[in-house]
C-alpha cells in the first residue's frame, strides 16, 4: 500500500536524523536539505538511496537535483511510488 505524505515525511525525518543527526521534529515540508538540515551533496545521495529502499521508488540522479526541500522529496515519492 502506498505511503501517505505524512508517512513519507516521517520516514524522511528518520533518514535525515540517521544521516545528519538533525532532530526528527525539525524535518518539515518547507525545510531545505542543504540550507536547513546539514545534508551536503554526498549525504543527499545517502538520503535518496535510503528513501528509494524505504518507499520502493526509483529516483534517477537527474531528478535528485530538483529535490531542494523535504516537500519536494515527499511530492516526488508520492507521485512515483509503486
Amino acid at each position, binding site marked *: 500500500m502506498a505511503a501517505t505524505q505524512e508517512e513519507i515525511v516521517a520516514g524522511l525525518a528518520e533518514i535525515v536524523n540517521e*544521516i*545528519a*543527526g538533525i532532530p526528527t521534529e525539525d524535518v518539515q515540508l518547507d525545510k531545505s536539505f542543504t540550507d536547513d538540515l*546539514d545534508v551536503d551533496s*554526498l*549525504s543527499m*545521495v*545517502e538520503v535518496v*538511496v535510503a528513501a*528509494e529502499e524505504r518507499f520502493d521508488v526509483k529516483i534517477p540522479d537527474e531528478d535528485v537535483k530538483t529535490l531542494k526541500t523535504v516537500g519536494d522529496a515527499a511530492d516526488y515519492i508520492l507521485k512515483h511510488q509503486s
Partner: protein
Amino acid sequence: MSPTNRTVVVTGIGATTPLGGDVASTWEGLVAGRSGVTPLTQEWAAEQPVRIAAQIAVEPTEVIPRPQARRLDRSAQFALVAAEEAWADAGFTAKAGEEGAGVEPERLGAVIASGIGGVTTLLGQYDVLKEKGVRRVSPHTVPMLMPNSPSANVGLAVNARAGVHTPVSACASGAEAIGYAIEMIRSGRADVVVAGGTEAAIHPLPMAAFANMMAMSKNNEDPEGASRPYDTDRDGFVMGEGAGVLILESAEHAAARGARVYAEAVGQGISADSHDIVQPEPEGRGIQAALRNLLASTDLDPAELVHVNAHATSTPAGDIAELKGLRAVFGDDADHIAVSGTKSMTGHLLGGAGGVESVATVLALYNRVAPPTINIKELDPAAAGLADVVRDEARKLPVDGRIAALNDSFGFGGHNVVLAFRTV
C-alpha cells in the same frame, strides 16, 4: 634568526591508544607496564592464525558525534580524537582564524599519516557492493578511504591552510609526518603544525596478510605476554590501533602566546635501506645513516642522549639491527641511553606508531621517566651486549641538566626515520 633555521617546540600532545582514550591514561599505562593486548573475540577472528591484537581502549564513536563519525574512516576518527586533545592541550580554544584562536589559518599546517589508509572502509564497502549491489555503495567511500583523509579531516577541524600533507612510508609514516612538520616550521612555511600518525587495520584481511608473512606473533594463548621486544623467544609483532598527535610550533610563536613547552623538536634523520622490500638490513646500515644524518643536520649532542623509544616491534631480526645501528653510531654514548620498547604494551600501531611513540618520547623527557619494555623473560644476549634495555619497570632519567631522546621508526620498504627531542 633566519626563517630557515627556526627552533621548533612541542606545545601540545594527544593520543588515543590501546592503553587509554587520552594522553594521561596512555602514559599511566606505559609507566605502569600495562599490556593493551587482548584476544580478538570477533566472529571473523575464529579462523585466523593470529587471534590477538591491541585494540583501542575507548571507541572513537563514544567521543565523536554520530553524523560526523559515520563519514570518517576509523583511522580518521582516531586522528581527530588525538588531534582535538592535542589542540586543546596546546591552549588553543578555537579553530584558526576564529576569535582568540592564537594562530592564523595561513600559518597553520596539518601532517597526519597512516601506513595503510582507509582499509576498513575500502573492504567494508566492497562487501556492500557484493552483498547489496552498486547503488548501496556509500557516496562517502572515496573521501573516507583515501590515505590523506585523516590529515585532511584534521586540517578541516582546525582550519589549516599552510598545507595539509600525508607522507606514506608504512610503519615509519607517523614519524615521517612529524619530521615533515618540523621542516615546514623550520623553513618558514608555517608557525604551527598538527602532526602525527594513525592506523586502524584490525580487520580480517590485513590480519590474515600480516600473519601469512609470518610477521606477527601467534602467541594466542598469552595475549598480554605476546609482544616481547628483546626477549629470546620473541616471534613477531602484535597489531595495534590508535593515533598520536603533536602540536609543533616555532619557539617564537609559542613564546609570543605564552604556551607551555613540553620539549624542543630538535630535528630528524631519514634514510632508506635499499636492501629488501620487507627485511631489515641486518647490520642496521640504514639506521646508522639516518642517525648520522640527524647528527649532521642538528646540534644534537650525543652526550645528552639518555633515552631511545625504539622501533622494537618484537621481530627476531629487526630488534637487534636497530640496536646495532645505535651502538655503531653512538659508541660508548650508547651506555647512557635507556632503550624502551613500548610496543610491548601498545602493540604495533603501524603508521600510528611514530605518533604515539613521539608522544611517549616527549613525555619521557618532560617527566624524566623512561617507560619499561615488558614481557622480557630472558633478555636476548645479542641485545644485552648492545644496549641498556629498560625492562620490567619504568626507570627515572637524570633529574638535572638538559637531556635528549630519540624516537625510531622504520617501515616496510626500507624507510628509516629518527626524530630527536630534548628538554628546554
